[in-house]
Each structure stands twice: as structure tokens, then as C-alpha cells.
């Protein structure tokens, strides 16, 4: 029987009373290229600009390019079959490892590696950035006041995770 195995299956768990770093495993990720007006009847209203994410029918919809979207849904999702044929669909569910970092120091930890403004007023919940962390491309999605989901390339996931837990060391309690 084939089973899904996380890239972080054998990574050392991180524990701290002020900061959680771990994996949110089990999601589907579909990259869809096409015009929003063709796709939105199926997905729900799509974000108007790159860097914004919205939630619709249990899925997170991100605009990752002028005419490119990420649809992040539950591990098993049949939306691929419903999308119009004209859309260019690339399943990417296995390509990314979703690392969650949450806690008061989360923004400071991320600021050590990502050259973006992580101030509360600048990086708000519901926004994301396609950027770099530890020399690898990542998508960082702010999903709460101090909660971020980092979509790291699967093959770099252990390296990125280890970098994050190392950067978090000084905040450990």
C-alpha cells in the first residue's frame, strides 16, 4: 500500500513554550494558470493582486502571478476535475513542505533570514510573499497575528526547517 511520507518525517521536533515550529502536513496544491474570470466560477472570487490570499470554500486561493493562482485545499480535493479545460493546471501537492511557525518571536525569527519587513503593520494576516529563505525559494503566508505558513521546496525542507529551529534558538524558553 502506497502511503504519503513527509519530508520532515525524521526531523527533530522543535519545542518551546513561546514558539511552535512544525509541519502542517496533508494538503493539496494546484497551480492554475488562466484568466481569473474563467477560473473564479469554480473556485470562488480570486484575489485581485499578487501577494493577497483569500479563503473560499475551505481552500486558500493565492494570486502568484498576473494570471497564475495557487489553490491550496484539503489533502484530497477534486477541484482539478472541475476547472475549465482552458486553464493550465499543474499539481504541486508534493513539491512543497508546509512549515508553520507561530508565537510572539515568529516575526523576529523570519526577519533573520528573509529580507522583508515583518512588522505587524507591514506583513499582515492574509498576505503572502514569494521570497527566499536560506538561499532557497519559499512562499511565506501570514495566517494570523504571529502565525506564518512557509511553503518550502520539499527537497530543501529539512535544511530550511533546521535553519529555522536554529534561528529560533535564542527565543527558546
Amino acid at each position: 500500500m502506497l502511503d504519503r511520507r513527509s519530508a520532515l518525517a525524521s526531523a527533530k521536533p522543535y519545542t518551546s513554550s513561546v514558539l511552535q515550529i512544525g509541519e502542517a502536513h496533508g494538503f493539496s496544491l494546484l497551480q492554475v494558470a488562466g484568466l481569473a474570470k474563467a477560473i473564479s466560477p469554480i473556485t470562488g472570487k480570486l484575489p485581485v493582486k499578487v501577494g493577497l490570499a483569500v479563503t473560499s470554500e475551505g481552500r486558500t486561493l493565492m494570486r502568484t502571478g498576473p494570471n497564475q493562482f495557487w489553490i491550496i485545499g484539503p489533502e484530497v480535493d477534486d477541484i482539478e476535475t472541475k476547472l475549465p479545460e482552458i486553464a493550465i493546471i499543474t499539481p504541486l501537492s508534493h513539491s512543497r513542505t508546509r512549515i508553520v511557525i507561530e508565537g510572539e518571536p515568529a516575526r523576529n525569527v523570519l526577519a533573520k533570514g528573509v529580507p522583508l519587513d515583518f512588522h505587524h503593520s507591514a506583513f499582515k494576516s492574509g498576505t503572502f510573499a514569494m521570497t527566499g529563505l536560506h538561499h532557497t525559494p519559499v512562499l511565506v503566508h501570514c495566517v494570523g497575528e504571529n502565525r506564518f505558513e512557509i511553503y518550502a521546496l520539499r527537497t530543501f525542507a529539512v535544511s530550511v526547517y533546521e535553519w529555522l529551529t536554529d534561528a529560533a534558538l535564542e527565543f527558546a524558553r
Partner: protein
Amino acid sequence: MTAFRRLDKGGRIDREKSVNFTYDGKSLGGFAGDTLASALLANGKTLTSRSFKYHRPRGIMSAGVEEPNGLFAINGNEPNIPATTVDLVEGLAAQSQNAWPSVDFDLMAVNSFAAPLFQTGFYYKTFMGPFKKSWMFYEPFIRRAAGIGKGSCEKDPDRYETAHEFCDVLVVGAGPAGLTTALVAGRSGARVVLVEQDLELGGQLLSETDRDFEMWRTTQVAELRSLANVTIRTRTTAQGLYDDNLVVLLQRHENHDAARGRPRQTLISLRSKAIIFATGAIERPLVFPNNDRPGVMLASALRTYLNRFAIVPLKRALIVTNNDTAYKTAFDLAEAGIAVTMADHRNVIPSDLLSRAAMLGMAMFPGTGIADVEGAKQVTRVQLAGNHSATIECDVLAMSGGWNPVVHLTSHSGIKPVYDDAIAAFVPGGYAKNHFGAGAVTGKFGFESVIKDGNAAGADAAKAAGFDKPATPVATIGAKDRAYKISPHWAPKTTGKGKAFVDFQSDVTVKDIRTAHDEGYVAVEHLKRYTTLGMGTDQGKTSNINAIGLMAELREMPISQAGTTTFRPPYTGLAVGAIAGRTVGLHFRPYRLSPLHDANKAHGATFIEAGLWMRAWYYAWAGSTPETAYIREMELVRNGVGIADISTLGKIDVQGPDAAEFLNRVYVNGFAKLPVGRARYGVMLSDDGVVLDDGTTTRIADIHYYTTTTTAQAGEVMSWFEYLLQTQWTDLKVHVTSLTDEWAGMAVSGPKSREALQLAFPDADVSNENLPYMGCLDVHLDGVRIRILRLSFSGELAYEVHVPAEYAGSLWEHVLKVAEPLGIRPYGLEALASLRIEKGHVAGLELDHRNTLDDLGLGKIAGKEKSYVGKELRFREALQAPDRWSLVGIELMEPDKKLRGGSILFSAGDEIKGHGRGYITSVTWSTELKKFIALGLYQGGLKHEGEDIICAFPLKNEQVKARIVSPHFIDREGARLNA
């Protein structure tokens, strides 16, 4: 002998908190709030170091980052740290430098007697002969003898971090101007970062005694600390200013502890919408004979030691000045009961100063300077000259030659400082957009005017950052500013026997500068390099302007025409560790793990770094060393069936109505007519006509392709595709996405591979008819779509099985389990790379961005009619030359020897010398031919097939006989592939 003592009360030190530290192994005590410098002075350590060239006795000269003399190795691992910048903490260990056996008794001081040898341009003049390459001979000896501190070879026990930060307004410096601007900007609502290199906020105010100043300071600091939008970073130095308002800050942390992840230093890249430079000014020394004796100090520093650290000269102080500010020091010292003598270069001294001096019982010598300073290891007597000739006994000699605004950061932006006659110093020559100056850096030294300007600069900066709401200005204390008057005095006309130092750290004297002038090195930049002036770790903070003044005098021109030096980052010494941050050890670079990494580990793989990847090199079942294991793994693939992890291959999803056209343009061979369900080998060129990469592309559907690249070029090919689509062929409707991480791959190879697949996928038809060579078949197992491509890198009947990455581990185990009766085992990178050599497939070692299609024997696959990237330049004359180094096979002719990768190839009759006629790119033991074989590039290529050659490996002094053969060592007809 001592020149200083600590007062029983006063200062900002916390006498409740004693701090123990060691100096050259001896235990000493100080207080919290001390710097290492103040603690050393309080402990009577007047002589603290030896100078660079002459090993002259030196003492602490300043109280700040400008310190040229008092450099120490701290805690055994960081040399050249100015004692004036080190906070005294419990257990601190300071070690003196550049002296042996000790600073008190330094045998290297014999250098003083050899002083004529160390004249200006000494190295250039002395070590250039007698032969052309003499310098190369002398250099290692000189390098060993030179330098001040020594770095440790031990691993740095401390932790360093890097971080990014953003704000609206950055304020550099927290003196009166910095506090004012930060507060005004903060009140406007802007996000403000205030950085201060000291551990306390206040700048010069920390050395004042006036209670009004202290009230003002504490009020502003309290409000700043109360503002949530203001971040205050003390112990933080703005090291450099770069484009786009990027300022690099170095923060030194008080409580660092590597074990708990607490860094010693953090290097912060801060980007601010607006920047205010409130960097203040540094006092400059006066130049007179023996002005470097321990106990000679900047006047402002002496005042800081008195008022901030409660340290005074033992009994008597002499102060020499050319401006009014030194009188503050004089008056404070006199009030503390120290006998003060004042020598002022100016004939006319403001009357209020004279009357105050008289009231305090000070001896005054107007129109008088210093002729000489006596005292072997500390100042004992000073000879005055000028209007008055006298010999004054004193413990400390304080000097003030005026004030240099700290224009370093503004200069980093490329704006040259300009000379301001009124203050006899350089000020910023302007500001870049959204940059502002405030306070002493602008040449204004009065408190009231600084606050007034600070209010304006703070509001302007906030406005520039988008906060135009007028904020309440910061209140002044209503004092009256005293006009700053200076009569510059650059150097004495004659210096007699005594050395008059301009640059204390680099041991550059007035005489050296005169020599440079006489020899024609008159431009400031030449002067600097010829004399080494300003090239020490202090970067000439106390010396540059005096040197420029002196050179201008010698050239008989105004200073404004003599020029200035270029200030470059970093402003103060910067540990390499801080630049590296956490880019050390495990985190030196990211590493990449195959989706099969855990499975490989479970099957006994030994891993090897290949680029960023950790790849399975060989497996335990085949042996314990790579030399033996790969041969067993090769034999397994040639005779049975093996499985290899090929997940590292680049994989690209190419979709869209114009996908066929796109691929047809990037590959040299045709892809437009590739049928659905079929794969094709393809080669692509860079636009210069040189081979970029090879791989296969499979047509999944009419407008959908699956492209694989080599592991090494995966990123480059992906970028190339995106570049072409986004800039060159914007009309093509094609989307490309990397699938390298989405899909894992495994090669199932060997004569029994079809049987293995049949066992693994019992519902699929993998027969030769249904899945021929270069065919593609999507199958399903447990509902998971798996893509089987019949491709072969090894030359055997083989398949690539591609599967979504998270299923890879369990599929790998499944295949190994169900095909166990066939004897299937995993094989690693070493065997993978060796099998392809036997087959004559080129890989990364041959695709090295220098070879053409023809060089690699691939010219025939290029389409003649169609156009493709690189086609035109491929036919350049040089790329078509008949004697180009081209791909050949090489067979070893001496069975008891071995071939080595990188060997240089010679024709049998050649003299073994130089670069030869080619080299070996890849080498392996051939399990089929039972001999060493290799691929290589050889001048003229296969025209020489059958000829004998010599493979030379100079590193081991080996030469072996070999023969040029076809690179296809096995199965030239492809019977195995098509089986």
C-alpha cells in the same frame, strides 16, 4: 607608576556592582558602567600597549571608537579591539598585543633604534631588489613581522547572527541631535530606529556635569522609551551606508551565550525610508614631539573619564589647545582639585575663559605650544615653547586640536566632504535624497542650535517618510550657545629629535609626511598609501585631517584644494564572524535531500555531496568501500536488475498551445512531431552555440510535455526557459513549472527490469509492444498515478519510474519487495555514473559549457532545416575547427595500472610537457571489458581512433599507455535497449 586615580564618588559607574576582569592574566577590578579603558586607567595602567612599528610605549588616548593605541585581544579570540569600546563585564580577559615579553619590558622596542630603516616607503625602497622577484621572496617574512594583533586559529566559541530590519526613519547617533530628531520623528508616528554605539544614550551629554543637561537627557530618553514606534538599539554601530538606503548595523549583545543561542553580535541590514545622520564629532589630537607618550590624551576624553567614570589625573594636568572646548575639561578638572596648567596656541583667549581660569587658580600660557614631552613610560614633564618657554611637571597631558565631524557615513553614499574654514574641519558635502544631517556632524557645536536643527531635521525626515503631521518640537533648556573659535595648528615647524606623530596607530610622523611630500607623493590618496597613514584598524579617525592640513601647508595651498580621503565601510572594526552570521557548519549552505533519502538510508546508503544534493553513493549490500561496491552494483545492473534513485534529475512541466513550437526551438532536434506517449532524447544549446544540457522530453498530451534535465543543470535550464518565454518569445503561449520537487524518480535497470516492473505493477501492460524503447506509460497503483518512461542511461533495458514525491518511499520499498525473487538491489551514484561511461553517454563532466554538438559526437541529431537556439553561432569558424578537442573513448593498455580522471593526454610520440592534446573527463572500471576505460576530449577526436596515447597524471607522476577507441564501449547496436 601611575598617572590616574579613581575618585571616591561621582561618575556614572555603579559602585554597588563590582566587576572582576583580567589584564594579561592578572586579576583587576572595576565597576559596572566602566569600559575596559576606564577600568585600566582606574587601576593605574597608564602604559597599555606598544606601537606598531617602533614598539613605543603607548597608553589610552581617547574614550571612544577613534582609539588608536589601546588595542587588546579580548577573551583570546578577537584581536585589535579598542579598550574604549569594550563594556567591562565579569570575567573579561584582556590581553595586550604587539609586545614581548610584556608591554612594560618589550624587547621589540629595539625597532626604535632602527627607526631610519622604517622610514616612509620603507618596504618599497628596501625590498625591491636585487632581483626582479625579490619582493616575492621578502613578503612572507615581512607579513609575519608586521601587524598588531593576531587572530586565533581556534574555532570561534561565540555565535553570530544576521537579520533584516525596516523602518521609516533611521537616526544614527544618540547625542543631543540624535535624541531630538528621533523624538520628533517618533512623535509624528513614524517607525523610528535609533542606533547608538555606546551602551547609554546621550553622547557627549554623558560627560557633562550640568544638571540641566542631565534633566533634558533623561526626559527625552524616557519619552523615546515610552513610544511603541521607536526602537532603540544601543551598542550598535552603523557600519556602512549602501544604495537604496541600506544601512548595515552591527549590534553587540550584552549577554551572549552560544549554548543558549544568544549571539555575541548581530549584523542587521536595515532599510529605512529616511536617514538622519547625528553622528557627532571626534576631537583631533595636536601634533608635537613625543605626543604619543602614555598619559597624553584627548582633552574631551580626559573630561569623559572624569565626569563619567570618576577618574582623574593623579595631581597635575597640563592641557594644550587651539580652541575653546578644552577649557571645559580644564575647569572640571580644576573643580575636582587637580592642578591645571593651560597652554593655548592662540594669543588671544576669550576673556570669560581667562577670568574663570584665574578664579580656579589655573596657570595660563597663551600663544604657547608643546616643544617636547618627557617620560619613558608615561608623561613626567612637558617643555612649552612659543610666547612662553617653561618646563611643566604633570601626570597627564590633554590636547585638543579641534573637532572633526564624523562624515564617514555620508561619504559612503559617494558625497565628498567639504572643508569648512570656520571650524577648520570637513563637513558633509551634501546629502542624498531623504538623507539629513543634524548636530555636530553639520559643524554646529552649540547645544541650543543643535536642538533647533534637530527639530527641523526630525520633522523633515518624518515628512520624507510620509509622516507630515507636524509634531511638537523638542524643548531646549534655554542656555546660550558659545561661539566655537579655533585657530588651526597642524604641525610644528620643527620637531627636533622627538617623533611627532600624526597617525598613532600606523606610527606615521610629521617627518614621514614631509618625506612623502619631498618625494612627490602629494595627493592625499597617494600620501595615505605611501606612508600607510590612516590604514590601521582605526582608519585614521584621529589622523586623517591633521595629515591633510599638514600636506596642504607643505604644498602651500588651501585645505579645500588639497582634497580629502575617501571613507569606506566599515566605520569601525567588524568581525568576519558577524558577516558570516549563521552561515557556518551545517548552515554554510542549504542541502537538498531526495524524496527517497530516508529510504536510501534505510537500505544502507552511504551519501556523497553532489552540488547541494546529498546523493546515495553506494549501498552496504555491495561492499563497504566505493571502490569495490560500485563494481558489484554495475554487475547487478548488467546481469540482473537494480534500482537507483534519480529524483535529482531536473523535471519541468511544459504546457500550452505553443509548447511544441517552444520545445522545437530550444532543442537542436525536432520535437514538433513527437507523438503523444513517446519520449525523445534532446540536446539544447546556449545562444552562443555551445551545448547547454541534454535530457529527454515526453509528450504527455497534445499540449503537455514532461521535460527532464541533468541534475547539475536543472536550475539553469529552468531559468533559461523562463528567460526565453518572458523576454524573447513573449508571443508563445507556454507555461513552464519546475516539477523537480513534485516528482521523485527511480531507474529500474537491467535485463530483468521488465520482469521487475511487471511484478510491481501487475495491472499494467509493460510489454515491449505496449511500452517500447522511448515509450511512456501512466499506470496506477493504489490510486496513485505513476509515470513509467522507457529510457536508459545505463545502456541496458531500463525504465524510469516517476511518482509524486510523497509516495516515493513506499513505492521504492514496494518494488524492492515484490522484485526480490529477481535479486533486485539498489545501486548508487558511482555505479550510475560508471554504467553510462561504458555506454558512452555524456554527462555533466563532458557538458561543461565549452563543448559543441560536434565535439560530443552529437552533430548528426541537429535539425538541418529548422531553426533552434544557438544554430547560427554553432557554425562559427572556431567552433568548426577540425582539431577541436572532441569526445573519444579511451582503453587502458597496461592491465596492472589504472586510469585517472583529469589525466592529460599525449600522442605516443609526444614529449610529456604542457597541456597535451586533451584530457580524461570520466573514468571507470568496465565490468564488461574487465579493464579501465574512460571518456575524454582529444584533439581531432575519433580521427585518431586506434592510435596509442599516453595518459599523464603529473600529481602522482604517473604515465600509462592507452588507446583511442569509440566512446561506445558496449552494445553499439542498441540490442539491449530495445530488448
